[in-house]
């Protein structure tokens, strides 16, 4: 199979990359009607599979689960998840031939095997849905021309998709139709109805493409979302230990700090986060993050280049073929870091203290969000897509670190994200060696404001605020957050 994106002429590459339109809620007025009475068969019953299925059924749709025969015979967790919630469960052979819509919610790595097994069984004119386009775009999977191929990708973990639905909301969702597979023109109505069934239409829907989703998703997860949070956390912890800060305090500040700091992003964007600092601290964080942006920009660009050229997916798939040798090695190494092995101390850290004593992370987050966003937009991805894959998801990933540090983050994210995260981390740490030598405890571990009188140069402050507030990620972020009239704070704490 050839990389689909690389088979396209440049003009078509740019066209598909530039697909991003925030949809008006009026577009969902028809509700789930298009899928009413149709047979929906979900393949895979993990967190996304189960929770999306529960939502679709609660929206009045006919949902059952196709599992591999071994999973059923051995009563594996996927089988228990489906049967404990009273879903009809059957083998591929039993259920796929009657399905009007097959929803593939298995892990990325299994997609090729799953599609090869499912596709021959699908009836003429059926539809197939993905929640991530890697298989189509990077692996170049060819789907039978009579089959409609769509994507519905909630931008939250499965448990959140369910929780928000039952609260009467939903989570922001990205939908797409594969241009090579829309023979009857029913792709968009199907994707929209499916999206309504999960509650996504209440929280903001981005009309995207398979290509835009994959290229932006890979970029976001490797750089700001996972890679930089990992690098920044480890470097911050090590610096505090080097400078004699109590290990338990350092561990707690790093583990929970990233969540508290990025929580501010969710409501007020980068400037909202920076506004949590005192004026002198804000100016310092601005200067530090400017320096970080200069240092890290080439690395961000390299990641984007490798993603666009297919070099990243090629390397990773070689590791798949090699039994995940590198992935497993790197995962083990992360488990051995001092930060990972030091339990958070039994100390109370107030909410504001996380900002005042962890200015370095504020600078890392600003640098990472803006760099990821800028690099994606330069590569032809629309600001709306770039926003979702950088700023929007950062608090969600930070939440996993708060739960159980980096090991938990890497367990929760996909293997693809994890692989890219390690690549970034390994390249980023050496880049920051000289920078970190200059960092002292006023940036991480102690209150930056201590011993300062709080005065700043007014003109400088005005300029810093101006630069922060007029960055394109702030402009599009303000627009998107406002457009999501229905979006309330998605709980991460």
């Amino acid at each position: 199979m050839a990389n689909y994106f690389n088979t396209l002429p440049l003009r078509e590459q740019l066209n598909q990359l530039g697909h991003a339109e925030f949809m008006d809620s009026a577009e969902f007025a028809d509700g789930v009607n298009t899928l009413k009475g149709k047979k929906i068969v979900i393949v895979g019953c993990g967190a996304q599979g189960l929770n999306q299925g529960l939502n679709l059924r609660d929206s009045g749709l006919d949902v059952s689960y196709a599992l591999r025969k071994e999973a059923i015979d051995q009563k594996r967790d996927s089988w228990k998840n489906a049967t404990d919630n009273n879903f009809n469960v059957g083998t591929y052979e039993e259920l796929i031939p009657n399905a009007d819509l097959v929803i593939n919610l298995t892990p990325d790595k299994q997609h090729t095997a799953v599609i090869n097994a499912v596709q021959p069984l699908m009836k003429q004119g059926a539809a197939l849905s993905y929640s991530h386009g890697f298989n189509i775009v990077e692996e170049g999977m060819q789907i039978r021309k009579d089959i409609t191929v769509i994507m519905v990708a909630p931008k939250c973990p499965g448990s959140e998709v369910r929780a928000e639905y039952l609260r009467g909301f939903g989570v922001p969702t990205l939908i797409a139709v594969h241009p090579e597979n829309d023979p009857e023109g029913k792709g968009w109505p199907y994707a929209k109805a499916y999206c309504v069934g999960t509650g996504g239409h209440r929280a903001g829907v981005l009309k995207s493409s398979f290509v835009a989703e994959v290229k932006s998703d890979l970029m976001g997860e490797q750089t700001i979302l996972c890679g930089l949070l990992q690098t920044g956390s480890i470097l911050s912890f090590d610096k505090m230990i080097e400078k004699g800060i109590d290990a338990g305090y350092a561990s707690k500040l790093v583990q929970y700090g990233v969540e508290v700091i990025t929580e501010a992003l969710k409501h007020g964007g980068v400037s909202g986060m920076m506004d949590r600092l005192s004026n002198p601290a804000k100016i310092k964080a601005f200067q530090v993050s400017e320096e970080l942006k200069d240092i890290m920009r080439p690395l961000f660009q390299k990641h984007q280049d490798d993603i666009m050229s297919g070099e990243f997916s090629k390397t990773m798939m070689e590791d798949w073929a090699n039994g995940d040798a590198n992935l497993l090695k790197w995962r083990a190494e992360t488990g051995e870091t001092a930060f990972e092995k030091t339990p958070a101390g039994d100390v109370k850290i107030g909410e504001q203290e996380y900002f005042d004593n962890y200015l370095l992370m504020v600078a890392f987050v600003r640098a990472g969000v803006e760099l990821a966003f800028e690099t994606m937009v330069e590569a032809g991805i629309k600001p709306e897509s770039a926003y979702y894959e950088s700023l929007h998801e950062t608090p969600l990933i930070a939440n996993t670190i708060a739960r159980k540090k980096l090991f938990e983050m890497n367990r929760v994210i996909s293997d693809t994200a994890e692989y890219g995260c390690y690549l970034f981390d390994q390249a980023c740490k050496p880049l920051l060696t000289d920078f970190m030598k200059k960092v002292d405890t006023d940036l991480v571990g102690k209150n930056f404001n201590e011993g300062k009188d709080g005065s700043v140069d007014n003109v400088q402050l005005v300029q810093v605020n101006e630069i922060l507030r007029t960055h394109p990620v702030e402009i599009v972020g303000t627009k998107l957050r406002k457009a999501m009239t229905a979006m309330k704070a998605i709980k991460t704490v």
Partner: protein
Amino acid sequence: MVYKNPPLTPPKEGNSSSPLGRLGGDFVHISHLNLQYAGQVVLDDLNWSIHNGENWVIGGKSGTGKTSLAKAIAGQEKFAGEITFHFNEQLNLPARAYYVSNWYQFTNLEGDRNFYYQQRYNKFQKNDTLTVYADLMHFGAKNNLQYADVEHILHALGFENCKDTQLIELSSGEHKKLQLVQALWLCPQLLIIDEPFTGLDKQSRANLLDLFDEISHKGTTLILITNDQHLPSCINRFAEIENGKLKVVQSASDFSQDNAREKKSLPYFLQREPAVTSQTMVELKNVSVRYGDKVVLKNVSWTVHAGEKWLLQGPNGSGKSTLLSLLNGDHPQAYASDIWLFGTKRGSGESIWDIKEKIGIISPEMHWYFDKSATVWHTIASGFYDSIGWFIDVKYEEKKQIEQLLDFFDLLPNKDQLLHTLPLGKQRLALLARTIIKNPQLLILDEPCQGLDIAQTTHFNAVVDELCAHGKTLIYVGHYESQLPSCIDHKLILERGEVIRDPSIAISSKVICK
């Protein structure tokens, strides 16, 4: 030991050189206690001595600072002034003040608390929370307790069958019991319990009184915060808080009561009879629900016709909440059962929102998991959309209705306050307002008065009676006959998931027993 702004855990050891003897001596001495909450004075130079051998009940009006006082003693609230403990080192009981709040709290295995109230009905293989047994083992290990010592407490509170239940699966009454079990097992020298009887069934409650006497006999000093008249016999002192100061009274019957509420007439839009979709609102035919080997409901058949007012009763854990979750579209097992709601069979293409729009529901679980960022106004507005604290675009007419209802429940001054910061009684009224704002055809009120005192309960039930006089159908869950709306005309009793025929209400002929 004397301390100001106490550490989170009170001192382990008392002042052993104290000249005061055990009996009749000063056990806890509180002087010049001042406490503010959100800029308002709650406790104002309060003084109080608790002597050895005394067991207190603190009662009186709501919102006077009872909980704040309890938390201050337990070291969970910042205050100015002094609280001195003289723990008895001869006594083989933990030298600490232990506080049981009236709200239960637990986290999932990842330390997170992002639950939704229907979560316990959705099954996911990966366990999210500890089991009751694991939770107890954890508590026991932390406090050096022997498991053998807790078994009779579990038995007395009817809790021994819950050991393998996950915390998320417990009902509100069962959570209360778990808190009580831990406190009684710990048997600290000072035990403060906020509303100990909330949500308990009759038998557990009777046994709880004996358990209190038992630990008091062992040497525990009790402070109970309640307005209840049925108290353990060891209780011998009574007080309430007036203007931020402690006022000793003679008995529980002397507690001040909240001012009788000025009766207002029901807003006009609620005097209209709601549209009824089907004369048979609910029909369950031989419905069973089981989780693995655990049977929660067994062969339950039940029909509710339009206009009927049902009481649903049963001990904690008898399956009441599960039964109601089937009616409200909250339970995945409804899809496998023979259930008809408003004339439509479950799983025939209706969405849960089609069902919810016809029902006004309130339950302790919904209250507990309600959106912490919702104001009173948002809470009520969300009732139009059956969402938890969120709404799309409230129309002019709806805004008027919200205002009228705020006024009816005397909540206008609180409309922009966060729901969870109000006294419990007001929170319940706001949630009741959310429940009725859309004038639903079916009201499901699951222990709506849990945590309210008698006066508040009476007022609340009078409102329910008035609503029901205007054509609503009612399903009401309450443990105590004396605290029910008078409109009730049918009764369903559940025990261990099965329907029990109750002779006391003659018209319960529609209850089919198996």
